């Protein structure tokens, strides 16, 4: 199972700001190893962020997103103590879901 994400959820006025770091190789499939064989593509394809049962962001990613991806955005609403859930799925079917509390 992949390493946990590092999520920061903070209330900024009447909005919640999300900053998240994900641990993932995001291998492009363009590189070759020392023997000359192509290193297969391995990257996060879908990211979903949810709050209070609602999806606040849904993303489709390709391997051009940088390794150990960083994502930041804001949504209206949220209160201190609320939970925010972030989930990703990669092209191998590996998944990761992590939760953070709005501070």
């Amino acid at each position, binding site marked *: 199972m992949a390493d*946990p994400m590092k999520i920061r959820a903070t209330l900024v006025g009447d909005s919640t700001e999300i900053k998240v770091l994900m641990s993932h190789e995001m291998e492009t499939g363009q590189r070759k190893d020392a023997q000359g064989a192509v290193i297969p593509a391995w990257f996060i394809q879908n990211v979903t962020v949810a709050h209070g049962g609602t999806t606040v962001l849904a993303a489709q990613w390709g391997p051009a997103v940088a*390794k*150990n991806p960083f994502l930041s955005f804001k949504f209206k609403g949220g209160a201190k103590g609320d939970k925010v859930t972030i989930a990703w799925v990669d092209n191998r079917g590996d998944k990761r879901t992590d939760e953070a509390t709005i501070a």
Partner: protein
Amino acid sequence: MTPRLFAGLAGAVVAFAAVAQNSTVDGIAKYREALQDGNPAELWEARGEGLWKEPRGPNKVSLERCDLGLGAGVVKGAYAQLPKYFADADRVMDLETRLVWCMVKLQGISEADAKKNPFGNGNDKKSNIEALVAYVTSESRGVKMNVSVAHPKEMQMYRVGEKMFYFRGGPHDFGCVTCHGADNQRIRLQDLPNLTKIEGAQKAYTTWPAYRVSQGELRTFQWRLNDCFRQQRFPELEFGSDASIALTMFLAKNANGATFDAPAIKR
């Protein structure tokens, strides 16, 4: 063309070149600034904290009783006073050699296993040392560097490190001083800090370890020295060797007084 007009044009050309040069420098500065928000090093810090607290090895014990110089289990501020002489080992140790010591003595892990993978490579070959270094150094962020050379063995390490810094050898007759002994030197777009001056020494030492974007990994000071040796075409600098500790001692002590600000993020 009148001399005055010609001088004016020449001045304009020089000014334009200077502006072009400056805008590149500014551009790079903006890139580095934009990177600060969201440092993947935090992923290593989290993993390192887990490794510090997890009972591991044949003895199934955590590293929480490891003495990094400020007492057993004290992590806060520990990096800022390393390298340091440790009586129980009767030698000067930097953070990495001290971590290996604790893994061997407390957890019962063999020295070979503890030193096995100092520099990680991707998710399949993660380095525990790098994660532990990320965690321990993060607990010194904001602390002023205060490395002591009071003990004779500490001073000896400092002097050896100093000699190594100025020693020229290898097929290119390089020394550390070749790249890091003067102002305003650079390799392509990478400015080289002048480590013989206090500002350069302070800024360089207090920003390692760092997440190196080009490596996609969190790299430690042992890695930085190892890579410098590689770039100078020197023989490999053995991980945790006295040579590596001596150089680290020299550079760390020269940074005394500066505020430690790592793990950082670099290109």
